[in-house]
């Protein structure tokens, strides 16, 4: 039995540490720990709820829109603001662009190097690489000459002796299975994707002023004016620019990203039976399709228990709770019970080893993440959960079509979805479905302009005087990494309590009071480890969740705890 520590887990957002017991070439037990804490919700106390989105947005600069969206939805629900049609469409476009761009970056820049051996690409035959590339896609950058150029550039880079960010990696590890040609193709697309993400995210600059940290959100709507007869508003010029960027996005996702995932997956089919995890999947659903109080959602809501795709249970926010038995917090009611976010409290109390330390005391408290549970059960959230809920619901039909196509091209059944590889495939399928849907929301904006509907904001609820004196609200959103909820309590125009229950908290959280492991921990159990000092396989399973640790750690308690005083310089 070997105890291994991987810290930092790199190619993620934030600070994550994995400790694992490895025995007989596989992980027996694993512990997931988040090692950074800021306390943003404590900082929100007493502030104007209309400002909250900008604060919570800074929880994460990678998924830079998600906490802003969840925040404005929570505050809107509390004060009764109803965003108009244009705001809904602008948000849908912003959310879809975030998901698509994030999924591409995740696959190529954060995850691919777990599957792709850059050094092996050096021995690839460019002509064979060209044949391979042309057999999977009609993407034009696929000539022998092109791949020879990429190979020579990488060769020059390696020969220079300074590998920069590619130094000290696990190149040559026996778990790398791709032939040199597939590695070279993937390296070429790694570089292309770096270029593509910059272009595609201009959608956010058009609709939000900048990316990261878009700045056009408002409680009750959006700040981006809409008027086809003004050069200072979204007009026909911007509609055309959006259509162009969406088409560019569609091109890359359907002709590069999705074919690459299928090609690479075909060499790693054993990973379709590794890394399943807890087997419960939850999606809040997102992309409202109309402006009613209870709109139909483009991606549906629901819960799948125990990998049973025949039944979908509804989601009820009252059944969400967070536990701190293994987290560095204390509850006033004791650590043996969970609290719903409306009653949530967070008293940070670090009881771990004093830094610098070698190992955590995993039998006690060992993470800055809490353990969210739904009706007491751990839930996996994310693209796989969303695609499973959509697949089982039969809508949107495009999801079922793409999932079935993917399964048949890999020659596997639906059970293969519950795996490390399933997460990778679900992310690519979702990117395809969303990028295809963006055109309909751009058209929706144009249609509203045609009807002279330029409303972007519910101005009737802007003045805090129009709000109830005491109100509660929650906002649900599907972030790239999964189901995100914000809960807010507002009193006399100020925030008294604010809680975020975040995808990476659901997925990366520690064990709960009953000892049930979180999804990362459960998924790692059984993961093979060929070389304990080079735990490449652990990275594969952890990265398949797309960790976002800055998001995962939060703190709330606006009601109980006397705040720590700031030192005065």
């Amino acid at each position, binding site marked *: 039995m070997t105890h291994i520590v991987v810290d930092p887990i790199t190619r*993620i957002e934030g600070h994550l540490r994995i400790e694992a017991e490895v025995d007989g070439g596989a992980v027996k037990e694993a512990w997931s720990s988040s090692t950074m804490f800021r306390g943003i919700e404590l900082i929100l106390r007493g502030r104007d709820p209309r400002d909250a989105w900008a604060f919570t947005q800074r929880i994460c600069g990678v998924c830079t829109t998600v906490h802003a969206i969840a925040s404005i939805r929570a505050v809107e629900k509390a004060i009764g603001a109803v965003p108009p049609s244009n705001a809904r469409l602008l948000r849908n476009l912003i959310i879809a662009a975030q998901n698509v761009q994030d999924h591409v970056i995740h696959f190529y820049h954060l995850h691919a190097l777990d599957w792709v051996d850059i050094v092996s690409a050096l021995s690839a035959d460019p002509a064979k690489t060209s044949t391979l590339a042309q057999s999977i896609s009609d993407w034009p950058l696929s000539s022998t000459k092109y791949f020879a150029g990429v190979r020579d550039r990488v060769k020059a880079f390696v020969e220079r002796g300074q590998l920069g960010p590619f130094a000290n990696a696990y190149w040559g590890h026996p778990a790398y299975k791709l032939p040199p040609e597939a590695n070279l193709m993937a390296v070429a697309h790694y570089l292309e994707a770096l270029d593509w993400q910059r272009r595609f995210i201009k959608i956010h600059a058009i609709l*939000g002023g900048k990316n990261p940290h878009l700045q056009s959100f408002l409680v009750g709507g959006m700040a981006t004016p809409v008027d086809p007869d003004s050069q200072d508003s979204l007009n026909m010029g911007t509609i055309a620019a959006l259509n162009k960027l969406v088409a560019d996005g569609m091109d890359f996702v359907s002709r590069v990203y999705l074919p690459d995932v299928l090609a690479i997956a075909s060499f790693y089919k054993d990973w379709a039976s590794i890394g399943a995890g807890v087997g419960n999947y939850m999606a809040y659903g997102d992309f409202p399709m109309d402006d009613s109080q209870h709109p139909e959602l483009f991606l549906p809501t629901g819960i799948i228990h125990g990998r049973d795709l025949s039944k979908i249970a509804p989601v009820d926010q009252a059944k969400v709770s967070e536990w701190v038995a293994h987290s*560095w917090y204390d509850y006033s009611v004791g650590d043996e019970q969970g609290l719903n976010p409306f009653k949530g409290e967070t008293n940070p109390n670090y009881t771990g080893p004093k830094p610098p330390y070698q190992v955590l005391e995993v039998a006690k408290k060992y993470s800055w993440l809490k353990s969210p549970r739904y009706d007491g059960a751990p839930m996996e959230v994310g693209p796989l959960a969303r695609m499973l809920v959509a697949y089982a619901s039969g809508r949107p039909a495009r999801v079922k079509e793409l999932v079935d196509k993917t399964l048949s091209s890999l020659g596997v059944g639906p059970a293969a979805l519950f795996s490390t590889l399933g997460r990778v495939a679900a992310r690519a399928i979702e990117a395809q479905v969303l990028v295809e849907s963006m055109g309909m929301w751009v058209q929706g904006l144009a249609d509203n302009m045609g009807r002279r509907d330029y409303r972007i904001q519910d101005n009737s609820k802007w003045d805090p005087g129009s709000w109830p004196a005491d109100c509660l609200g929650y906002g649900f959103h599907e972030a790239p990494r999964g189901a995100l909820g914000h809960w807010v309590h507002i009193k006399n125009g100020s925030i008294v309590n604010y809680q975020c229950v975040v995808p990476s908290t659901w997925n990366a959280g520690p064990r709960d009071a009953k000892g049930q492991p979180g999804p990362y921990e459960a998924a790692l159990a059984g993961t093979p480890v060929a070389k304990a000092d080079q735990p490449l396989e652990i990275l594969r399973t952890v990265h398949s969740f797309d960790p976002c640790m800055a998001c995962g750690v939060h703190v709330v308690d606006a009601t109980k705890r006397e705040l720590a005083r700031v030192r005065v310089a």
Partner: protein
Amino acid sequence: MIAHSLSQELEQRGISRRDFLSFCASMAAVLGLPETATNAIAAAVDSKQRPILVWLEFQDCAGNTESFLRASHPTVADLILDTISLNYHETIMAAAGSQAESALEQTVKDNKGKYIALIEGAIPTGANGAYCTIGGRSALEIAREVCGGAAATVAVGTCAAFGGIPAAAPNPTGALSVADAVPGIKNLINMSACPANAENITALIVYYLTLKRWPPLDQYRRPFFAYGKTIHDNCERRAHFDAGQYVEAWGDEAHRQGHCLYKMGCKGPATSQNCPVVKWNEGTNWPIGCGHPCIGCAEPNFWDTMTPFYQRLPEVAGFNVGRWVDPVGLSLTGLTAAAVVAHGVVQAVRHKQHVKSQSGEDKAESE
């Protein structure tokens, strides 16, 4: 150090000399240098001696990393990055765990006094450093070691530069800026904003490579080339401010016609940065350009001093570019002092003291 010159490498990577010069010209523009400086920049960037960079993330959101990935002359900027040799960056590096840590250790040991440290995120001092650890070591310990041995340290983004959001009241983790956490380090430069603009980070590196020195800094250690003027000075909507044409409600005729956002809470008059000139995402847009007020994200303690975001600044005079900035800055902190009591914020007081102690006689007189 690296054997090939950059232009040779660029050519190998399919980037022409012409593309390279056009990148240098755009850098000259960001730096406010005359166009004739293009050749000097090209010569400097093209030289064989290029420093090593390490990029550390502490209490951060990776927003500055993401911003950097959006640099507007991407291929070349990226090349400069990897040519400069980015030896450590948690978000993008291939290695993990002890292999990642040894890459950092080795770089710091082998290049003492020569590498450039870029820091993203604040540094917590509470709970013996347990609010942020990497490889079991506290952020503070790592920062002391890495910044202590660097030729220069660049605090990228408002969290590293000024403490940012973790240090916002009530600062639950005792978060500090790089300047306060590791005092006395050599050549500290603050590139504030949330996030820092990629163009400005690239321009800073080019400035150093071109002129062989670091740029002159303002009272908050920010380079004048990016922070020498206020948003308001350069704002495309300034004429509407001077003409008294203001947005009064979201989506009203004035909002749709691009009038001034001052009454909606714009903090442009009290914020120094070159957003209106450089803009974001390859010059595509900027916050005011899409109808939302500036929130003052490049300023120290803006989460406390610039909030509530939708409350307008105290009286701002027109037709007087530059002159009114200091009085506004002071009345703003005065205003904040009231908000501070409500919030139990001590930080803003510190901000005020900071302004007084560092900004010299002008401000003391006008107060």
